[in-house]
């Protein structure tokens, strides 16, 4: 609990300091993918389901909200409708996927993702196909970079609080039960498939919310946001940050985007570096960046405690 308090304080500080650390568009994108990764972690870390199709919801919702904005609907209608849209789709897709476990679940979500990608790709009149959906204007009240950042930060905070509420509710506990021991959860009276669907829907709906915000960053929906490689990115960001804690994935997002932007300037073959980093994380720091930081923090504390202790000993000796 205390640790959570610290991490929330750190989060608030990050929201204030972030715009000075990173370029505006980048930090805004980090927050948006922060929603995605934190919500994906509800499914991945808490419930133990690995979906390789989260870009499906991100992209679909982005298209819906983009189309509504283009059609002249107000933003405060577009975002809820798009989010609702991804919720409905998540129920449909999830219905088929949660019947299966493990590898099959991965394959199915992956396959659904590809299916939606091709729908978006072929249905050019609506989605713009290869070119994506362009020319979506931001409403004037969030047109400047600062106001848009504030808007995104508020949406981010709301989403994070909602997700935190879920995590600390009985529902969050049920998700953990399923991750730990699905057959036992079933035996004490939980319909595992049903709760898996809920978990899948929550993750997908919030991913959808993020997608509907993404439209506004660059005033467009590129088709690569619904491609399976994006789903991969989402998983990597989440794992990179670490699935062990609630806010860990955010560290992953910030790290992933920052590293990829930085390395891409240094060396054209930067995906190689990213690959090596991922491999190292998997083989040696499976808890991701958040655990690494936590360990460092602990070590630091242990050292300071040790020196304190030594100091005490010295003091007693002196006395």
């Amino acid at each position: 609990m205390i640790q959570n308090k610290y991490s929330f304080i750190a989060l608030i500080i990050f929201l204030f300091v972030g715009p000075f650390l990173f370029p505006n568009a980048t930090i805004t994108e980090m927050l948006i993918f922060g929603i995605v990764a934190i919500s994906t972690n509800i499914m991945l870390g808490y419930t133990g389901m690995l979906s390789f199709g989260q870009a499906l919801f991100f992209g679909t919702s982005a298209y819906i909200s983009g189309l509504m904005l283009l059609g002249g609907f107000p933003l405060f209608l577009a975002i809820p409708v798009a989010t609702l849209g991804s919720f409905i789709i998540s129920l449909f897709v999830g219905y088929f996927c949660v019947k299966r476990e493990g590898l099959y679940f991965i394959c199915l979500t992956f396959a659904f993702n590809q299916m939606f990608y091709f729908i978006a790709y072929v249905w050019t009149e609506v989605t713009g196909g290869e070119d994506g959906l362009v020319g979506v204007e931001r409403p004037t009240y969030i047109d400047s970079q600062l106001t848009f950042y504030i808007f995104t930060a508020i949406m981010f905070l709301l989403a994070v609080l909602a997700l935190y509420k879920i995590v600390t509710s009985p529902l969050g506990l049920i998700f953990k039960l399923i991750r730990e021991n699905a057959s036992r959860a079933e035996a004490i009276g939980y319909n595992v498939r049903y709760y898996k669907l809920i978990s899948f829907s929550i993750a997908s709906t919030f991913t959808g919310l993020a997608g509907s915000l993404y439209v506004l960053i660059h005033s467009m929906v590129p088709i690569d946001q619904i491609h399976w490689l994006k789903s991969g990115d989402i998983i990597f960001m989440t794992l990179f940050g670490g699935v062990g804690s609630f806010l860990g994935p955010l560290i992953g997002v910030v790290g992933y985007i920052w590293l990829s932007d930085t390395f891409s300037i240094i060396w054209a073959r930067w995906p190689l570096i990213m690959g090596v980093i991922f491999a190292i994380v998997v083989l040696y720091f499976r808890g991701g960046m958040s655990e690494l930081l936590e360990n460092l923090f602990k070590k630091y504390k242990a050292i300071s405690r040790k020196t304190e202790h030594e100091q005490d000993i010295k003091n007693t000796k002196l006395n």
Partner: protein
Amino acid sequence: MNKILKIQNLTKNFGNVSAVSNISIEVEEGTIHSIIGPNGAGKSTFFNMISGVIPPSDGYVYYKDKDITGFESYKLPHMGIAKCFQITNVFPKLTVKENVWASIFSCSHKSKIDLFKSMNDFEAIDKETKKIVSDVGLSHKIDDKAEELSHGQQRMLEMAITLGAKPDLLLLDEPTQGLAPEATVEMTELIRQLSKKYTILLIEHKMHIVMEISKIITVLNFGEKIEEGSPNKIKNSKKVQDAYLGRK
């Protein structure tokens, strides 16, 4: 006396092999009814069919006169049937409290809204959790993770989870499996205590425990019921002795 569980002609075939064939038993309310049999007698298959893990090939299961044959296992706790597993089967990364809490919550929450409330809003469940945990003697470990408990403690936790569902009928699958002698005694005592409150269907292959606490015993061998009756009757049954001592 009221028959709480009636099983009629329960059969399970795996291909051409029948693991359980044509078993009928009736469990009286408020008793300990044991099912025994040597290894491979079909006890586990039988148990799994009752608890909804595998669907039977034939036959019926009635609980309180309601047909529950082939119900998915998650529905049973809500009707008052709880089961305890043969191998330790807890939620290792969660605390003892959470383990038991989740089990109580499962059958006691009324609406979907409860799912989204804060964990701190359920005083009644918290209280009950503490009570059950102390009943099984784990109060001092309540905030420890389940994986940090000793094996015997995990079995006790297992029992606590099962009791959390507030069942009328307890299905216990070899609760003393792999326990040290002292722990076995402890567990036997616990079961005896529990029988005051619950009807118990006990699957066990340790003869002495069963003899000690059961009211009625059903003996299975090669998937068939070979004998049924009071401990005394079983003790003196020739068929049972044959089965256990190895027949020629």
